[in-house]
């Protein structure tokens, strides 16, 4: 995540001490641990979209993603008393989400029907999309739906481990080191998985790559 972790961000300029996202999260966690249950809602509001995006791209199903995201926060809430702050809260909750989704995917033997989220209309006005439309000589709306389907299919063809690394890096924008911490692997493993996954995606999506 670009705006979290080790990046120092001045929240209160009047104060001498600058707080990182990690410190801010830790302060909220301590409030929850002290009994202020309502403070947990701040963490939900801050991370719900990131967790949902991760889980949605892992499952390609809107309803499953909603359930799994809620369950991730419930698990975090139940375990927050044992959270000691050795890692950042966002690393911790991403790890819970990844593990919970992996368990869900193992249990789900066959793919359920896919229910996609709507793509923001701004995307169809981007430069890359203009190029794609020109190349494929198709109507924008049709191309958006087609590309969405192809992208989801291609992601689902990857193994869950490779898929999670691609999602965390390319969609969520996390650094290699952050992904390594979440997945409890080395940065070398993360790079290797990312390289392999991109190669696979390139072959699946070659019709759209110039």
């Amino acid at each position, binding site marked *: 995540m670009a705006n979290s972790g080790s990046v120092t961000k001045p929240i209160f300029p009047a104060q001498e001490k600058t707080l990182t996202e990690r410190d801010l999260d830790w302060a909220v966690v301590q409030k929850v641990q002290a009994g202020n249950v309502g403070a947990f809602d701040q963490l939900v509001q801050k991370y719900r*979209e990131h967790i949902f995006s991760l889980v949605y*791209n892992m499952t390609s199903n809107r309803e499953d993603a909603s359930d799994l995201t*809620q369950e991730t*926060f419930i698990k975090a809430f139940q375990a927050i008393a044992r959270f000691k702050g050795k890692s950042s809260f966002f690393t911790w909750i991403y790890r819970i989400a990844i593990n919970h989704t992996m368990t869900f995917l193992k249990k789900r033997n066959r793919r359920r029907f896919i229910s996609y989220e709507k793509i923001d209309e701004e995307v169809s006005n981007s430069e890359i999309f203009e190029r794609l439309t020109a190349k494929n000589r198709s109507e924008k709306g049709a191309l958006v739906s087609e590309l969405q389907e192809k*992208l989801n299919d291609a992601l689902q063809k990857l193994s869950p481990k490779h898929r999670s690394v691609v999602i965390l890096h390319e969609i969520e924008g996390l650094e290699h080191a952050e992904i390594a911490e979440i997945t409890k692997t080395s940065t070398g493993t993360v790079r290797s998985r990312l390289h392999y996954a*991109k190669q696979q*995606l390139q072959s699946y999506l070659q019709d*759209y*790559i110039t």
Partner: protein
Amino acid sequence: MVDTNKAHEKEVKVEDLLRFKRAERPDEAFWDTFDRELHQRMLQTLVKKDPWYVQVLRGVSGRIAQTAAVGAAAAFLALMVLRPTLVDTTQANGSYLALQETASVVLDSSAAPVEVTMSDLDSTLTPDYQIEAISGSSADRGYMKEYSTDSFEVASYDRDVYAMDTAAYAGTGLAITLVY
């Protein structure tokens, strides 16, 4: 060089395509429902869940009580099943012991006539042939008849009694009777 850069810029990479996925976002209505459902589920969790140590204690105490109840029931059943068997065995053993006592008394009492008979026999006979000597000396037909009749009556009685347990008891009964 400029053309190459332009061509490079126009390339569509996997990374560019994956960036479209960032645009797949739920609307506000979805998040309203999400928040409402999450709050409900968290409240349910708060109401239902006990602290972990309470759950552990409850589990352990429940298991102890369950184990004790099952153990007590098993012990009671075992007692009810085994008790009649134990009683019968005791009675049988008692009869057997009584029989052994009787047998020893009878054998002891039968030893005296043997010794008396041996003293009347030829002194050249060795003790190994004492039984043959007894047989040989009992040549009196009247005595044999009387002895035979009595022995059969008593033997048949004893067989009836001990046939309930084992054949060995019946045999023992016969042997005792013959000596008697």
